[in-house]
């Protein structure tokens, strides 16, 4: 039996571009490959993605597998499993890295069971154990209350990595690598799902994940009107509005604004949490922020254990005065 060797990164493409998740994985994957002294390969799956292969190499890959087929233009579980199985057999990687995205969350576990191996989802860190050469996979568990380090006992070792946990390399357009085109060879009859429609959520202004300032509201905001005030502050600071889960569940804000374990991961310079209790599942999505500011009426709230500055009191009184004063200071 051939030996499992090297790292394989699944690169997601959105609107014809490599996603930031993909370049982060390539950066992290490159480092792991160098630590192991083994090659870094990547796989591009879709339709019209071949043109991105050179860019994948520029971001650190030694080898890029390109699989194109109209049947895999959009993500679907069955055909992607078939393609990834084929690429895994060809590349024989000992590690497969995917993004902790709506695609990776679906693909990684099913692929792991399909290949009789294991996956760990939502890793923050991957490192090579110097003794065993196995991958040490660190991920939050218990909603972020604890961290666990897992080792898989079977190959390939599959991990999804959270957004912003790894850094992309500066792309080097002169970097050389090999591009291998693989025929998808899909049998349409084996695809048991049909994507009928894709409904994108419209977000006006700066994207939450990219914003340098995030103003986040919790259940204590009480309704959509309150979020308008957060919107005003976000606009002043050229930031975006985020939320805990209850405001999303209640329809005060779109679900895409949820920050946390089961929402978006943000790492802004400034995270202003208003009427947010600081549950571990929420903090799991924002604890990488440089500065957390809390406004909460409960001085015992967990958010004050995580914040750098805080005000204890009713946000309805504190926030307008805060925004007013900032306006004045920023103008002056």
């Amino acid at each position, binding site marked *: 039996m051939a030996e499992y060797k090297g790292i394989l990164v699944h690169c997601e493409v959105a609107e014809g571009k490599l996603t930031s998740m993909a370049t982060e994985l390539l950066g992290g994957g490159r480092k792991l490959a160098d630590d192991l002294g083994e090659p870094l390969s990547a796989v591009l799956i879709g339709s019209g993605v071949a043109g991105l292969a050179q860019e994948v190499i520029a971001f650190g890959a030694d080898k890029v597998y390109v699989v194109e087929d109209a049947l895999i233009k959009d993500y679907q*579980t*069955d055909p992607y499993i078939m393609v990834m199985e084929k690429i895994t057999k060809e590349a024989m990687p000992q590690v497969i890295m995917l993004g902790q995205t*709506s695609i990776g*969350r*679906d693909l990684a*576990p*099913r692929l*792991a*069971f399909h290949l009789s*191996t*294991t996956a*760990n*989802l*939502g890793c923050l860190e991957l490192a090579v154990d110097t003794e065993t050469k196995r991958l*040490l996979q660190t*991920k*939050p*568990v*218990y*909603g972020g209350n*604890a961290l*666990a380090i*897992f*080792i898989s*006992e079977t190959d390939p070792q599959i991990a999804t990595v959270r957004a912003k946990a790894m850094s992309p390399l500066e792309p080097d357009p002169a970097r050389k690598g090999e591009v291998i085109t693989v025929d998808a060879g899909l049998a349409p009859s084996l695809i*048991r*799902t*049909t*994507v*009928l*429609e*894709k*409904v994108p*959520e419209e977000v006006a202004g700066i994207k939450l994940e990219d914003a340098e300032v995030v103003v986040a509201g919790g259940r204590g905001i009480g309704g959509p009107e309150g979020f308008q005030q957060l919107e005003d502050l976000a606009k002043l*600071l050229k930031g975006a509005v985020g939320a805990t889960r209850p405001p999303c*569940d209640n329809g005060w804000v779109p*679900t895409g604004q949820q920050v946390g374990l089961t929402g978006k991961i943000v790492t802004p310079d*400034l995270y202003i949490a208003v009427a947010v209790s*600081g*549950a*571990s*599942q929420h903090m799991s999505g924002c604890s990488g922020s440089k500065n957390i*500011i809390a*406004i909460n009426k409960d001085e015992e709230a*967990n958010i*004050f*254990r995580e914040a*750098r*500055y*805080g*005000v*204890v*009191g009713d946000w309805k*009184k*504190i926030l307008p*005065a*805060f925004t007013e*004063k*900032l306006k004045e200071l*920023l103008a002056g």
Partner: protein
Amino acid sequence: MANVIVCVKQVIDPEAPPASFKIDAAANKVVPPTGISPVLDPYAEYAVEAALKIKDTVGGKITAVSLGTGQLRDVVKKPLSMGADELVLLEDEAFAGGDSWSTAYALAMAIKKLGEYDLILCGREASDWNAGQVGSGIAEILELPSVTLVKKIEIIDGKARVERATDNGYEVIEVSLPALLSISHEIGEPRYPTIKGIMAAKKKEPISWAPGDIGVEPSQIGVAGRRTKLTKLFQPVREGKCEIIEGESPEDAGANLAKRLREAKIL
């Protein structure tokens, strides 16, 4: 009519204050907080709610399956009190201490024994290990199609039409039945148990299956069946130095916060 199987489990209350969360680092184990009762896993509850919504519209039967040891009756019977019809427990010690592999395998074998089903529902991830894999694993073992992160389900012409949450919106997917769906919170708040439901649940005896009853390989379940090793469990260190900004009034404190952030060159 739809036959729906829902996988549920008991967990430490994930909404307990983070300060109450403790681990025994030497044993790599979580210490259950004293005085805080365990609960049904929240995402499992969303899955039960999804099953009930299906039953509300097309009728049918809901069977909950729960794997775990030391399960409190009040907790694991919650699906029944919400409106599920049957409860199957896999609570033999041999099932304990597993990972996604051994758990999915045992659940898949129990589901096989149950036989007829149109849909299997799981939560998208349990609140303890946040593995997010058991649903997909069951589907793979039973060779069923799967859709994850599901936020809406309709049964139309012998197929399921579901909405799947994606990173930037959602997609509408049609999937043949039987299928496995893992459920996200957008499905809607789980309903409260009714008095009638609670009474019915009290009277209902759960079915309990041992490994031998579902024909599992002993080497493939519980600790023995693990393919991942937990090498270390620890709590992240929080620096936790929060400077509380005061003021004569809340408004004043708000203004002082703005000044302080400016001084500290954060803004």
